């Protein structure tokens, strides 16, 4: 199938996930917040649904692999030290900024939250500049 049609279908599934989580549990489907709530200090009291959500995330590609032979997961495209630095920055930034592509990007924009609209504009700009420097300057 055309990758852009698949991308739109994938987006709709992500939206359905966010809507269901709000309708059933009243929660924002923000992955950084779901993960960070499990971590010290003072991990959230409601750990079980967070762990279940992460289990669901991992189950999806596993099931795709069994059913279609392709889990849709691609290899990392940068060296391991870069992955380590990038991961650390993503962890710091999403906790400090209160969200990531899902919490601010999907859920926040859908709620027309001014904080999320600003956050998305800023992290998108930072990412665009980073990629430009990494690929066309360095």
């Amino acid at each position: 199938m055309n990758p852009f049609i698949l991308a739109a279908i994938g987006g709709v599934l992500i939206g359905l996930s966010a809507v269901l989580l709000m309708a059933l549990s009243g929660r924002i489907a923000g992955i950084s917040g779901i993960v960070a709530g499990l971590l010290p200090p003072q991990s959230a009291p409601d750990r079980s649904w967070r762990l279940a959500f992460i289990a669901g995330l991992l189950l999806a590609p596993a099931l795709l692999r069994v059913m279609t032979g392709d889990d849709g997961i691609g290899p990392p495209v940068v060296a391991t030290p870069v992955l380590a630095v990038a991961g650390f920055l993503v962890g710091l930034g999403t906790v400090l900024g209160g969200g990531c592509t899902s919490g601010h990007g999907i859920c926040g924009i859908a709620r027309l939250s001014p904080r999320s609209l600003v956050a998305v504009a800023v992290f998108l700009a930072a990412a665009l500049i980073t990629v430009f420097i990494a690929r066309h300057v360095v």
Partner: protein
Amino acid sequence: MSSDRLRQSVAGLITGFLFGLGLCLAGMTRPAVILGFLDVAGNWNPALVFVMAGGVTVTFFGYRLAFRRGKPLWAESFSLPTARAIDRPLLLGAVIFGIGWGLAGYCPGPAVTSLAGGRAGVGVFVIAMIGGMVVMRWLRKSRSANVALKPAGQE
């Protein structure tokens, strides 16, 4: 109350699965696709635009339906972010996150989901991400203890 907790775990599993399925089908678990989107000066790949358009549209209308009921099906109330201020932590956090996202092509959802592929590099990213989260949570806790500032809502 405990039955609500069990039902919320079921909701977590179902919604996590849908979310992961969406990410994988959309190609968001391929960092090459993400970096292709972020590389506007190169061979631009617009896939992420379609994902965001689909996701935001469904969520925009779906949230309105969900909020109309007044409370969630399996919880006492909606847990919505309370922070309103567009302040320095929000802006600085977004800049730091954006740099990390642009360096490797992973944001938290696709990174965690890609762990299922069993590649060591993804494990390195996620462990480092968890490390960054713990460090920032400690910093914020010690800071909020000093100035009695309530941490901003997590999303």
